[in-house]
């Protein structure tokens, strides 16, 4: 209960930063922070393995990937971003707030299921066994998916053989 | 399972020709002739190996893609392969055509194979109509100046006839529940079709016999246009004359035979119940066809039109024999003579007409397109070999014994005279007139003093000699040994006879 109470505001704060920061790199870094905090929350809740995975994959891979992508691409115009924010914020909130309202309503008032408290303990052995027995097809499918993604991403990201007409700008 | 494949060999060849860019017209022709030879060999092999092939297509409606090759089909398939080969060779020799031309000829060949082997109306009719498109294109695109009009007429007339035929067969499908030729033949021999028609079309208030007569007439119309029988022949002279000469060979040698074949395979076995009623009409139309063809040929000055009319005349004999079979009730030996005569006449006329048109093609090539009766003269002195070989074809055409034309005519008249003596006796005048106009052609083109403009003509080249020699062999051998053809056809003919008049 206590780690939750501590971590929740931090997570929200970091997430807000990720959404609000005008400079893309800052936003990305705030995202990394958010993900890391969520990982800590997992650890605190007893899901050690998931937390570690979250760390490794999200913080270590995805966030870093995003940062690199930002470095490769030309960042947009910051001033324009700030200038145009109020207008886009209005429409964004117009959509977001009803969603938040519904979700929050459900979260606060809708969870009337009867819970039986326990000491959650994630057994890595059991997890592994399940992964390679009953969930083996899913793992295999995932493996194929990841392979395809790897090849596809490499293909997409590859510099084209023949430079386009805009290559003269380089 | 060879039967369906030899049908597709020319089609595959046509597709290959269509997609292979950049080969010369001559190579295209060679390739087409190779396809033709391969299908000929496969057909010959198929005679021994496999006779039947069937694929249920819409079993609920009794529709099957059923093909079968008996002796009768085999002779016609053989004729298709031979005449196509000759037409392709003649085109090559004439320097006519390109890739598309040869591809269309091969498509036509494929469809003709289908027509002569299909045993169910649906695949048969598909092939029957499929012959029309390549033939139309061949006349339209490679023909003379009047070709577009002639081709359109050909197309419209035959298509119109087919439409009636389709309606007739739909009526049979609705009432008898099948369009399979053999099944219909069996039903017909039990006299069941008229009853079925009467039941299905009770709302018309007509008797089964009347209905069946109407259906038979509809089918007859489709066949009559194709053969053609007077008065549905008017498309023929212009189409034959305007088409490029090798295509004319295909038209007269093969397309007209479709009608004759269908008469034997469909018309006689399916409608025996109304044949006696229709026989007088058929007989006198046949006599009219014979006489009109011969007399009109007498008045022609265009060699191609003359031979075209002579084809009308020769096919008239086939119709005469078929009419005799229709009229007969019991004279089995006369009927078998008539049917054998039809088969032989159809086969031999295909070959002979090809030879005659090859000769005209040679005349046309040498004279740069002239083919008038009076454009030539005295060629025998200049081109003795050509004259000799062409003369053999001419004499075969007028029924000289020892050459193939005679046997068919003898059997036809033998059968027809026993059943319908008056009609046969009148038709004999046709035989006489054939001699008159053919010999007049020989005299005007080959005999008499040599025209000075023809003094530089060369005799046949080696290739032309080979082509003509091949045709002359095909003319001479069945003339002396008709058994080579009858050996194949006779079992089928006996079968047909049994079907026509079931032994009680």
């Amino acid at each position, binding site marked *: 209960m206590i780690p939750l109470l501590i971590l929740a505001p931090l997570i929200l704060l970091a*997430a807000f930063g990720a959404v609000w920061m005008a400079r893309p790199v800052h936003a990305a870094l705030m995202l990394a922070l958010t993900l890391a905090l*969520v990982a800590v929350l997992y650890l605190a809740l007893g899901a050690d393995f998931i937390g570690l995975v979250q760390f490794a994959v999200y913080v270590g891979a995805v966030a870093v990937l995003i940062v690199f*992508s930002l470095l490769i691409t030309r960042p947009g115009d910051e001033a324009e971003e700030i200038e145009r924010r109020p207008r886009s914020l209005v429409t964004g909130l117009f959509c977001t707030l009803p969603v938040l309202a519904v979700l929050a309503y459900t979260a606060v008032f809708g969870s009337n299921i009867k819970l039986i408290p326990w000491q959650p303990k994630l057994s890595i052995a059991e997890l592994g066994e399940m992964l390679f027995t009953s969930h083996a097809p899913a793992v295999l499918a995932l493996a194929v998916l990841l392979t395809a993604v790897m090849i596809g991403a490499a293909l997409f990201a590859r510099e084209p053989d023949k430079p386009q007409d805009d290559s003269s700008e380089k | 399972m060879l039967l369906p494949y030899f049908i597709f060999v020319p089609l595959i060849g046509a597709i290959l020709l269509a997609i292979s860019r950049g080969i010369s017209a001559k190579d295209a022709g060679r390739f087409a002739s190779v396809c033709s030879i391969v299908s000929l060999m496969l057909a010959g092999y198929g005679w021994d190996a496999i006779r039947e092939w069937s694929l249920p297509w819409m079993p609920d409606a009794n529709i099957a893609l059923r093909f079968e090759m008996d002796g009768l089909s085999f002779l016609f398939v053989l004729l298709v392969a031979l005449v196509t080969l000759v037409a392709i060779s003649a085109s090559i020799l004439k320097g006519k055509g390109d890739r598309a031309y040869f591809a269309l000829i091969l498509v036509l060949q494929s469809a003709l194979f289908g027509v002569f082997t299909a045993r169910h109306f649906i695949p048969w009719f598909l092939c029957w109509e499929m012959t029309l498109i390549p033939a139309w294109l061949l006349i339209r695109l490679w023909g003379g100046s009047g070709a577009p009009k002639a081709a359109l007429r050909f197309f419209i007339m035959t298509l119109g006839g087919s439409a009636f035929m389709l309606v007739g067969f739909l009526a049979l499908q609705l009432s008898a529940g099948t369009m399979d030729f053999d099944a219909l033949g069996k039903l017909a021999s039990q006299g069941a079709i008229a009853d079925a028609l009467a039941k299905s079309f009770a709302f018309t208030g007509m008797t089964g016999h009347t209905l069946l007569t109407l259906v038979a007439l509809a089918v007859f119309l489709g066949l009559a246009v194709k053969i053609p029988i007077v008065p549905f022949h008017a498309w023929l002279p212009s189409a034959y004359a305007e088409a490029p000469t090798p295509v004319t060979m295909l038209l007269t040698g093969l397309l007209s035979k479709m009608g004759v074949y269908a008469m034997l395979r469909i018309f006689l076995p399916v409608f025996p119940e109304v044949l006696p009623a229709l026989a007088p009409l058929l007989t006198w139309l046949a006599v009219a066809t014979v006489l009109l063809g011969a007399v009109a040929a007498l008045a022609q000055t265009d060699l191609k039109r003359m031979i075209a009319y002579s084809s009308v005349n020769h096919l008239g004999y086939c119709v005469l024999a078929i009419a005799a079979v229709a009229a007969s009730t019991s004279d089995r030996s006369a009927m078998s003579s008539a049917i054998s005569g039809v088969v032989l006449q159809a086969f031999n006329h295909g070959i002979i007409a090809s030879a005659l048109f090859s000769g005209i093609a040679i005349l046309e090539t040498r004279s740069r397109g002239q083919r008038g009766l009076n454009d030539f003269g005295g060629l025998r002195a200049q081109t003795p070999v050509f004259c000799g070989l062409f003369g053999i074809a001419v004499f075969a055409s007028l029924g000289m014994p020892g050459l193939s034309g005679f046997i068919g005519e003898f059997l036809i008249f033998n059968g027809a005279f026993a059943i319908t003596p008056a009609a046969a006796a009148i038709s004999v005048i046709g035989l006489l007139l054939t001699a008159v106009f053919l010999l007049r052609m020989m005299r005007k083109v080959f005999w008499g003093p040599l025209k000075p403009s023809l003094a530089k003509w060369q005799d046949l080249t080696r290739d032309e000699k080979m082509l003509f020699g091949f045709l002359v062999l095909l003319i001479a051998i069945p003339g002396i040994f008709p058994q080579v053809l009858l050996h194949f056809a006779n079992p089928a003919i006996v079968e047909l006879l049994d079907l026509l008049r079931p032994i009680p």
Partner: protein
Amino acid sequence: MTPLAMMLTLSSVLFALGLLAVLTRRNAILVLVGIELMLNAANLNFIAFWAFDSPAAHNAVEPALSGPLFVMFAIAIAAAEAAVGLAIILMVFRHTRSTDLNKLDSLHG
């Protein structure tokens, strides 16, 4: 307020924030950031239900690992998605020299 409700509220807000990012940020990469946030919100829910409800009480035969398993798969798929998404964005960038979504309107009617 039960811990579960708190967790769910947290994830709701996180989801809304992600959605806001998706809808308002003009940089395509930052839209991807929003999507990651929304995915994480979903993952939080899985873990929450796993952590605050005993599976034994529901007579489960198998070990109660559905939540973590789903999270595992979700993380893997999210990684894949991020990789492909970023690759696409890179390609778009190479074409248009921009990652500004407002400029990518060739589907405009």
